[in-house]
């Protein structure tokens, strides 16, 4: 199952908090996280990598799409 976290426009540390919540769910292999600033990209990437995920970041318009895959 794949889940989407829309954290655009949210203050620090809410994007990280939501990402962690989503990653803690059973059976989740992949999560897409949407954020709209570099700080959130860095914070979510750091958190996801520390939890053993591979992170792929793509930029679309002025938003960022982070694809998190559980190793």
């Amino acid at each position: 199952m794949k889940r989407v976290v829309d954290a655009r426009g949210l203050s620090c540390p809410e994007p990280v908090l939501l990402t962690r919540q989503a990653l803690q769910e059973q059976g989740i292999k992949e999560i897409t996280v949407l954020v709209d600033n570099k700080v959130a990209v860095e914070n979510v990437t750091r958190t996801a990598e520390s939890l053993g995920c591979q992170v792929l970041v793509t930029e679309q318009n002025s938003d960022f799409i982070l694809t998190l895959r559980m190793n």
Partner: protein
Amino acid sequence: MQKHALIILSGLTLGALAVFLVLMGNPGNYGVCIACMLRDITGALGLHRAPVVQYLRPEIIGLSLGATLTALATREFRTTGGSSPLIRFSLGFVGMIGMLVFLGCPVRTVLRLAGGDLNAGVGLVGLIIGIVTGTMFLKKGFSLGRATKISPANGIIFPLFILGLLAAALITPSFIFASKTGPGSLHAPLFLSLGAGAVIGVLAQRSRLCMAGGIRDAIFFKDYHLLYGFLAVFIAALAGNLLVGTFKLGFVGQPLAHTDGLWNFLGMLLAGLTAVLLGGCPLRQLVAASEGNTDAAVTVLGLIAGAAFAHNFGLAAGPKGVPPAGQVAVILGLLFTLGMGIAVCKFKVGGEVKNEKSRGCQGTVVS
């Protein structure tokens, strides 16, 4: 450790520059303090009339301009707004009262501790408990809601305000107040302060240095990245103070400090709580405001209004202690902030985790 290099470098630089600025003329343990320096600027603009704390601190001007120029150069300047601006203003306002009862922001808490001021240790305990309380609200779903992209015209107002302060600092017109005695009269030369502020602004923008965030992430997520910056400030300032002979261990006779433990504790508890609910300490708010974040700019205006109020109504502490009105204000500030926390948690406006309905994320996510 390589991925932490920038945040450590930023912390070390800030700590070292803070000691240097004191050596060059700033008051003791007051090389950098976002709260006190904004308070001094508030006084210089005549928004409060406490004659001993009025000076257009160039460190704030340099820091903000450094952050703005770096954000522009890295294409990170984005104009956003609309995330509960009035709550942010209010939290900035009451947070400033807490910081002026303690006499320092989270940055100065570390600098005071690195100068041997043990009262700051009491403040640090309050700061940590405030941050823990704030994270409990976050766990319960506290969110000030989404900011959205807004007209760039909004984003240039704060940098224009800072440019106005720069012009005033350079031209020194007669309507700008400047203390003749007291802490406001003690300062490093203008261009040194401006340059040091700019260096800190560039590094803080790149590294996202945030003192309250460091403690929050360490406790909340076991993520020590920002905490390394916090520790680096302490280590550099401690080493610097020991080197130049400004380290003095104890509670009594510390520069710009009082020994009333209860109010040092409660003042910083309020500061920590508001910082977590706002998403960052005053340093981070100032940097974000300089990057086009108008919600952070409104928070800085709240800090300025809080400083004006604190000195116009005799709430701010002095070396002799905390006036009764300041004690009442901190209690009211705590009640207000806790009330806001509960009220906001009941009306959830934050982000959401959704199941994707089709392949690819475009068009499938409710924004």
